[in-house]
């Protein structure tokens, strides 16, 4: 039973990191209806800046610069690439972000070389043990950060005009412009925010229990895809729910892989995708996503 609880808590804690990454997808999707495949490289960028600086200026300032840096990179992607696209096909833009991702990842991995970079976080490998269940401090921090950020965004989307302008701009840029919405600024802000979120996610993705930031870190962003979709691509609540579901699924499937060995070993990676497919069969727009309009 403790194992189950430990796996469950472990899953929830890594799930909150996925939720943070998924939130980045959601913000951009809400503002532009584009699935941002370059999120992985934003993650690398944020982590890289933090990792390079923490020795000289200390962790918290480095993290702040990292967040700002990733925000700038995100904004730059918007300004240099996304804004220049004149068509209206969101799938095409999604593919463009793949191109951007390749460019950025190549550059960043070239810079990082083969190093494994520590981020110099204050939690180290500290753990907290409650009733025989051990949890890494970093993960508790991640859980809190994810909860906090997601609540903040939920409120911001609901109660400020930012959320409204984002959705309006995403849905119909021309009319949004006619409403006086500054299209450029809205999507610039969304990309910058997504970058900042990526930097935060990168932090929790690379601190203990994982060894540090390195070129393969961006692959972890892949795990947030099922999270984002599962919850609904345009829902902040969905990002949280999806992240947690993916984390728990993965953790349980790994922890009980001996009992599941008839499915072949190592289904930890696969399980979240299977859950995602099941959910989509029942709810094509995810758990909390906006359903497609069906009126003419």
């Amino acid at each position, binding site marked *: 039973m403790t194992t189950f609880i430990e796996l469950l808590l472990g899953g929830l804690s890594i799930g909150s990191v996925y939720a943070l990454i998924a939130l980045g997808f959601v913000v951009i*999707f809400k503002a532009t209806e584009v*699935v941002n*495949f370059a999120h992985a490289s934003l993650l690398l960028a944020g982590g890289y800046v933090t990792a390079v600086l923490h020795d000289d200026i200390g962790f918290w300032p480095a993290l702040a610069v990292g967040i700002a840096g990733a925000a700038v990179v995100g904004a730059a992607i918007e300004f240099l*690439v996304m804004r*220049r*696209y*004149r*068509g209206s*096909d*969101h*799938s*095409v*833009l*999604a*593919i*463009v972000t*793949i*191109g*951007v*991702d*390749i*460019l950025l990842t*190549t*550059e960043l991995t*070239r810079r990082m070389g083969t190093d494994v970079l520590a981020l110099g976080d204050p939690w180290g490998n500290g753990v907290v043990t409650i009733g025989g269940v051990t949890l890494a401090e970093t993960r508790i921090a991640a859980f809190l950060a994810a909860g906090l950020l997601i609540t903040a965004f939920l409120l911001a989307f609901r109660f400020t005009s930012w959320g409204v302008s984002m959705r309006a701009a995403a849905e119909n840029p021309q009319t949004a412009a006619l409403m006086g919405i500054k299209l450029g600024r809205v999507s610039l802000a969304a990309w910058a925010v997504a970058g900042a979120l990526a930097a935060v996610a990168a932090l929790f993705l690379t601190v203990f229990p994982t060894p540090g930031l390195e070129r393969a870190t961006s692959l972890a962003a*892949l795990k947030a*895809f*099922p999270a*984002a*979709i599962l919850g609904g*691509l345009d829902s902040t609540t969905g990002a949280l729910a999806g992240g947690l579901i993916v984390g728990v699924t993965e953790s349980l499937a790994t922890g009980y892989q001996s009992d599941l060995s008839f499915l*072949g*070993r*190592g*289904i930890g*990676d*696969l399980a979240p*995708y*299977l859950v*995602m*497919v099941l959910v*989509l*069969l029942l709810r*094509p*727009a*995810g758990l909390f*996503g906006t359903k*497609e309009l*069906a009126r*003419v």
Partner: protein
Amino acid sequence: MSETTTTETAAAPRPATPGGTALAGRLRQPRTYLWAVGSVLLLAFPFYLDRFWLQAGLFAMAAAIGAIGLNLLTGATGQLSMGHAFFLAVGAYGYCVLAGESSTENGHELSGLGLPSWLAAVLAVLLAGAAGGLFSPIASRLRGAYLGIATLALIFIGQHVLFNAGSLTGGFNGRAVPPLSLFGFGFDDTEVLVAGVPFQSSEKLWYAALLALLLSGLFARGVLRGRPGRALNAIRDHRIAAGVMGVPVARYRAGVFVLSSMYAGLAGVLLALVFQRTVPEYFGMVLSLEYLAMIVIGGLGTVAGAVVGAAFVSLLPQLLTHYSDSLPLVSDPGTGGLAPGEASRYLYGAAVVAAVLFLPGGLTRLMKNSGEKK
């Protein structure tokens, strides 16, 4: 590539012109000659190029077939798919299992049906189609990003099966690919002298691949310009209206998914024949993304776009690596500069971005503009 535009005017709504004048008209176009020269070159390459270049060309042709399929799905119907690599794998492994003999290799008991290889190739394509059909509950229900990421699940499922179903797939080490043979003619590495040139598998396969590409290109073009193509575009542009116009939307979505899977299956068979061994690592997400990049770079929704994009994406790294010594900026690996691998990734990334921003419609549009009006 030439074969795809030879019938440029065939489907046009013009009143029937007597064959003679149409031919004369075509003879006056410079493009006709360009295509003719291109075709001759393509046919002559095996006599001049060495195995490396032929192999590169074969990879490109296989990719082109796969990309045509994806373009039917993503370009024409607006259904984003990131699971294309899965269907390539089904084709490749399907062929191996169907054509291979049962044997023991690297400690794996491999099962195989030992069918004639041509039949196995056909069945492998159908198998890929069937796999696409199995996915149709999802393919017909989801759209856009949701479908894109749902299909990503196929990649992970595929990888899992490839690694774990050892008796079919050979596990991590993959399976040897039985060479194709047709009417007793083997497309294997035994040397055949043709006009003094030793023909090995690459040379022989070249013609098979060229033919396969030509046929699949023409087929897709027919589909796109005909009734199904219009229905697919309608689904992309306005799903509800398409239904009201009498298009069975779910059926077409599932249908084009199956068709696109079959193209991927054919590409997979061809790739397997070129590789001579299937390896699970190959059929990962990166491959799927490459196919998406191909159709965007080449141009969405057209056959020529897929072919041009495929050639670009699969030949670029080979060119850069091969000529890394003579290119400025690019340096040999290990000497500290920009490695060719990195350089080609930069270029490839930039090409995707640039194609979308500056060439809406892709590289083919560029060619069309410089040539005659479509």
